[in-house]
């Protein structure tokens, strides 16, 4: 599944004097082809990562530096953190970051616990209505969130949870797709071990916690990471459910910053860097699970 990780980046060179690059068949890769590949790779790299770097560069440019110059200046002449200070004076950006962190952490916990429990029930426990439960989760997965946001909002208002962080978390607290992911993970475990534990007198909680759960850590990590990323990046739902600026999450705060101080590009740039840096760091550390999640999610989706 995690193709990116398993394949080594470099091939061990042949014992010849000049190391040669070979492809997967052991055939030599022609030099012009290699050069062409790197040129294309660097071009795409500039397109995908360049915009982030430009944003970073803008955020580090001081108030006296011309950010609109033509031809553009890619590097700040006097890098300064002044804009980060200013953005925290303009909007409570650290409070927003904390709100985002709370929402994302809560989303991770509820999704991991809820989907592991439900997934285990669907995969391993026999009870009347198991098939109906599965159908419920499959149907829920097929309903696009965008088509029910208004009703979700009125539901939250009826519960008195609009404009709270709890209200932000609840609709996605146990995503149906994660339940089905966990169900598949449990189904792929060999049945015999749990059967043996059952014969030895382990009850259902012991079998779940001591035997099944430790074997699906990988899938659980995928669920955790995507729950974190989903909550941290979400926009439409928090935009609808939160109205009090002191409760904003980072994405909504950024939208607010952009709407109010649209012409202060340095300020917006600093805000976006604060919002994106934690996720890029997380991604850099846990790439394997990000890529694995795409594979598993796509099969299900």
């Amino acid at each position, binding site marked *: 599944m995690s193709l*990116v990780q398993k394949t080594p980046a470099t091939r061990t060179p042949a014992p010849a004097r000049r190391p040669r690059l070979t492809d997967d068949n052991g055939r030599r890769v022609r030099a012009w082809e290699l050069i062409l590949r790197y040129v294309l790779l660097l071009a795409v790299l500039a397109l995908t990562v360049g915009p982030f770097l430009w944003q970073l560069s803008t955020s580090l440019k001081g108030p006296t530096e011309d950010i609109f110059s033509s031809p553009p200046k890619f590097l700040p002449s006097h890098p300064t953190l002044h804009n980060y200070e200013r953005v925290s004076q303009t909007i409570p950006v650290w409070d927003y970051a904390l709100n985002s962190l709370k929402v994302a952490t809560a989303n991770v916990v509820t999704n991991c616990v809820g989907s592991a*429990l*439900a997934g285990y029930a*669907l995969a391993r426990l026999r009870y009347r209505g198991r098939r109906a439960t599965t159908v419920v989760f499959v149907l829920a997965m097929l309903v696009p969130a*965008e*088509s029910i946001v208004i009703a979700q909002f009125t539901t939250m208002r009826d519960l008195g949870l609009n404009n709270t962080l709890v209200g932000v978390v609840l609709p996605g607290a146990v995503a149906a797709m994660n339940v089905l992911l966990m169900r598949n993970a449990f189904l792929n475990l060999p049945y015999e071990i749990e059967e043996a534990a059952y014969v030895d007198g382990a009850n*259902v909680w012991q079998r779940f916690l001591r035997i099944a759960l430790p074997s699906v850590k990988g899938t659980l990590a995928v669920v955790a990471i995507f729950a974190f990323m989903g909550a941290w990046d979400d926009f439409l739902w928090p935009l609808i459910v939160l109205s009090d600026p002191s409760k904003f999450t980072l*994405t909504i705060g950024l939208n607010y910053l952009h709407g109010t101080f649209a012409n202060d590009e340095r300020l917006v740039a600093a805000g976006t860097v604060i919002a994106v840096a934690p996720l890029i760091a997380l991604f850099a550390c846990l790439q394997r699970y990000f890529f694995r999640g795409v594979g598993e999610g796509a099969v299900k989706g």
Partner: protein
Amino acid sequence: MATSTASRTRPSRPARRSPWRPARHPAGRPVSRVRRQLPTSPWLFAAPGLLITGAFILYPFVSTVINAFTDRRTLIPGRFVGLANFRELLHDDMFWTGLRNSALYVVGVVPALVVLPLLLALLVQKNIPGITFFRSAFYTPVVASIVVVGLIWVWLLDERGLVNSLLETIGVGKVGFLSDQWLLLLSAMTVTVWKGLGYYMIIYLAALANVPRELHEAAAVDGAGAVRRFLTVTVPAVRSTMVLVAALSSVAAFKVFSEVYLMAGPSGGPAGEDTTLVMLVQRTGTGLTGRVGYASAISLVVFVVTVVLMLLVLRADRREDS
């Protein structure tokens, strides 16, 4: 099916005969058993997930369907009005604008997201030094929040932003990416494609890994060039993945909200001409005067169209199979 019917009528009843329930448990009333021992009912395992899904996905869905036939507002409980909301839709210019823009989004974005990530996957498929770095770097836009991505591009495409300053340097002159109705929509599409590239690239990489190498070799021996091999070997081999990508990306494209909202502003660009359907839902249904009933009717249209899109793509797949 008989089991599921039974469960619907008596949801709290645990299984009567289950090989997973130790036999030494005396058959007592479920309530007392739960109290005396560790709760072992399978329903307890499923409960958190079922509660959340029921209360915040399925119930809102049902109430969306019901509200669509009422004149409910945020603070006023509605009355049943029959098909009035849908009749109003037919004469609402903004609805047709939204439908047009969301449909255009599918037409513009889906072909790009089916083809470009495949080419990108071919580019990063071969294991050459540093390739893992490139793969990860190409994935970065997927990780970033759509708000961050949107704001980055608003600044890049600004009248005085990087793209225009580059265009000016090479003598093309400024382009009003964010002020013209159509250019704005096109710019938003570009952002969607840019953000989606890495995601679908990973999906294609997994599919490409399963293409038998012998096919490529046989084609090469027969004298097929790179382009020919791409069309006759690679494309047929990953065709089902292309259908999957088409399905995923068309549903996502029709529901577009954030990109256009951020780039065109909450009111949807010049005279609201860049409003998409989901933007219209958000604008009509929220706030103190929000027309919940009318917004629900638009939501139903969004739902029906996404389901139809999904079925169309899958059906196209089946037809090609036979």
